[in-house]
């Protein structure tokens, strides 16, 4: 047996004609030794997932195909194998953990059945032996009560546990190579840390090689032995984790690392004398029990429980929490996209929740929103200029004036004026989010509610958009209610933060103070789960990409 779990030499993957570049991957060299974790890092479109597809021989051929180079898994040339031989390889010698366990698992079959299937296809074990093996695997990935988990369907277990099931499935034949394609991206930070630990532990026990694909340098700092950086299909840098993280050589890597938000909050500014712009008091929202009679009742869920907060002029208030903490519900209640059960949201002294539809429409221009998914939040059938001018037109500004304003706003969010007559799908994610911000600004609001505005963006773009938001906030004296799950982002932008858990505020205070001295155990847990918290990105000359 060779010491290399995976060896890729000069790999080239061709894209179909008419794509933005001829090769998805050009000249990738990569080695994964046994017992080593190699991180393949890159932004979206860098070709990292296609690399995984090529190793598993799961590329959407013939449109996308390997055009040159060699891949060998544990000394065997993958590219020369027939489809039948590949079937035997997959699962047994090389296996894969996917990003989204909910879609990677079959919703119609129990968890146990799906792990059992791998054993049934590859081994000659009897039924009882297989069952014992599956339960043993579930135990190894620390799923509570394995025999009952065996009979559970994927939707009945939590996201973190589903990913554990995927790992159990990937490891049950002890493959020499494990490919993990962004396995923790869809998970909350606390769960992410557990999963990373689990992958690390099991990999050490098995002595397998892991090719870990990620875009998150925090995760890299947490798990990698070796790092390979991809940009636009080209390998720009490779080295040990130490070298790449702390002394990156290539300008691209340097720029990427410079974009990682630092965990040290900026020095606190005092807003104690500024007037309160937005004030929420005693907000409650419970999602009522659904169904009944025929469909079976579901439990009601309390999304927000007695929430009270104040936002002062020019201030940024972060609402931080994991999924299910009710932070998105907060953003929808204060903009009244969702009706609260009780409580009041005072905007400059007027209670937004008590407004009738007419008054509400009038009030809306003072509080605007930036949404999470810039693609979904822009009407695909409208031109950019119409999207931005829509608000002012609705509020009585003439068409010509609104369009002229919209063009000025484009310049403000650093988009070229020729963008005005394009449709949203012609832009990249970061550009779309700029359009979303321009739309929110068009009504000259006092408050902007931003719901995870950068979580769908690549890290370098994320840094730019955050910088833009901060600049605009200072220029226009805006107050920002910033909802995020990413503590790094919160540290950079927010003056104060609210930490939410299960609909309740568990801690609130100045960002710097909360980060330095978290009082609630949940906040402490959150902060200690941030991937790469021990790694401080080196101070590099910030080069925009």
């Amino acid at each position, binding site marked *: 047996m060779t010491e290399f779990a995976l060896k890729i030499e000069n790999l080239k993957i061709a894209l179909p004609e*008419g794509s933005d570049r001829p090769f998805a991957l050009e000249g990738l060299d990569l080695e994964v030794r046994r017992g080593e974790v190699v991180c393949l890092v890159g932004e979206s479109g860098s070709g990292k997932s296609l690399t995984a597809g090529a190793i598993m021989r799961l590329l959407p051929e013939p449109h996308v195909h390997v055009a040159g180079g060699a891949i060998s898994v544990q000394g065997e040339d993958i590219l020369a194998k027939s489809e039948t031989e590949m079937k035997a390889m997959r699962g047994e010698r090389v296996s894969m953990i996917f990003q989204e366990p909910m879609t990677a698992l079959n919703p119609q079959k129990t968890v146990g059945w799906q792990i059992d299937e791998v054993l049934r296809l590859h081994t000659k074990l009897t039924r009882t032996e297989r069952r014992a093996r599956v339960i043993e695997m579930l135990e190894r990935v620390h799923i509570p009560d394995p025999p009952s988990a065996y009979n559970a369907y994927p939707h009945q277990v939590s996201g973190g546990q589903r990913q554990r099931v995927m790992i159990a499935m990937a490891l049950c034949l002890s493959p020499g190579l494990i490919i993990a394609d962004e396995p923790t991206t869809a998970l909350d930070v606390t769960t992410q840390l557990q999963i990373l630990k689990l992958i690390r532990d099991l990999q050490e026990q098995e002595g397998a090689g892991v090719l870990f694909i990620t875009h998150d340098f925090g995760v890299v700092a947490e798990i990698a032995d070796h790092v390979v950086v991809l940009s636009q299909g080209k390998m720009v840098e490779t080295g040990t984790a130490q070298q790449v993280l702390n002394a990156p050589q290539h300008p691209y890597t340097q720029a990427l690392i410079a974009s990682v938000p630092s965990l040290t909050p900026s020095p606190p500014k005092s807003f104690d004398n500024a007037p309160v712009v937005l004030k929420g008091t005693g907000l409650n929202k419970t999602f009522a029990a659904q169904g009944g009679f025929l469909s079976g009742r579901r439990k009601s869920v309390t999304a927000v429980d007695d929430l009270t907060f104040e936002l002062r002029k020019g201030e940024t208030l972060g609402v931080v929490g994991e999924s299910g903490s009710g932070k998105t519900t907060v953003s*929808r209640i204060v*903009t009244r*996209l969702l009706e609260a059960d009780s409580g009041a949201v005072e905007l400059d002294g007027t209670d937004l929740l008590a407004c009738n539809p007419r008054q*509400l*429409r*009038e009030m*809306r*221009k003072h509080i*605007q*929103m930036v*949404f*999470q*998914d810039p693609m*979904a*939040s*822009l*009407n*695909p*059938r*409208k031109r950019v200029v119409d999207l931005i001018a*829509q*608000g002012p037109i*609705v*509020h009585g500004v003439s068409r010509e004036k609104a369009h002229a304003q919209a063009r000025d706003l484009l310049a403000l969010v*650093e*988009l*070229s004026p*020729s*963008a005005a007559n*394009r449709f949203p799908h*012609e*832009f990249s994610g*970061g*550009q779309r989010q*700029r359009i*979303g911000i321009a*739309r929110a600004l068009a*009504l000259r609001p006092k408050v902007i509610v931003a719901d995870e505005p950068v979580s769908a963006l690549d890290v370098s*773009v994320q840094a*730019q958009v955050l910088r833009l938001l901060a600049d605009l906030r200072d220029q226009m004296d805006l107050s920002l209610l910033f909802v995020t799950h990413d503590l790094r982002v919160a540290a950079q932008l927010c003056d104060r933060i609210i930490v939410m858990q299960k609909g309740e505020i568990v801690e609130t205070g100045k960002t710097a103070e909360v980060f330095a001295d978290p009082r609630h155990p949940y906040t402490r847990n959150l902060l200690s789960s941030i991937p790469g918290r021990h790694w401080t990105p080196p101070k590099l000359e910030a080069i*925009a*990409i």
Partner: protein
Amino acid sequence: MTTAATDLPPPEPSRPVVLWRRFRRNRAALLGLFLFTLVVGMALTAGLIEPNDPLRRAGVPLTAPFANWDTPLGTDQLGRDILAMLFYGARISLLVGVVATLISIGIGIVIGALSGYFGGWVDDVLMRITEAFQTIPSFVLLLTLVAILGSKIEWIALAIGIVSWTAPARMVRAEFMALRNREFVDAARNLGVSNTAMIFKEIMPNAIPPIIVYASVVMALSILLESALAFLALGDPNYASWGNMIGQGRAVLRTAWYCAAIPGIAIVLTVLSFSLLGEGLNDALNPRQKK
């Protein structure tokens, strides 16, 4: 900020050009388009073929096709020119098809949009009404309506529209329900956009492509329904319609098969052209298609 981050991709070709390019890729759709143009051409040139009355006696009854060049496709048992009737029939078929489709899609859009956008009791009431219509077999309902309204061609078109709006309504409702929860709708609501503008300016343009595709199906169905009515001798006897021709040709089917077969072929090709066209439109308008 460097300009690189905000550089734009080169402009895309305009929408009609892109749509035509996608449409063109489907050969069957091109055939559909060709047949459709042919039918439209027939309808437009009917006056040239027979300037007077297509129902007048033009020759010896039951002349076979290609026997006499005054009546190239022969005559029926009353001596009427089959070619002329075929051309005028294209007018009737298209007229009924277009009017009935407009009525059916129009009702469908209004009911489907209201019920999908508002949901709740509005949806409940409107969908129960829709179901009431759906439980009655559409042809039986059509016969009843024609019996009540009379068999003038305008009433027939209206009646066909009334019996075929349920499926478009359900489809529009499904589209609206899916689009209503999209973030861009929330974004528009947050700008203070009114409900009417929300339905017609925000959501409708996004729901239109599948409706257009379905319209081609409704069109084909309407033509078939009209022919079926005429076949049962419930059509408007004052117009030459393909259904009428088949209905009357049935009596002489064994001796002069062409009286029924020629308009039959015309119906088959027209309906085929609409379904091929619909398929091509589906390809062209499907946003998941590239280039």
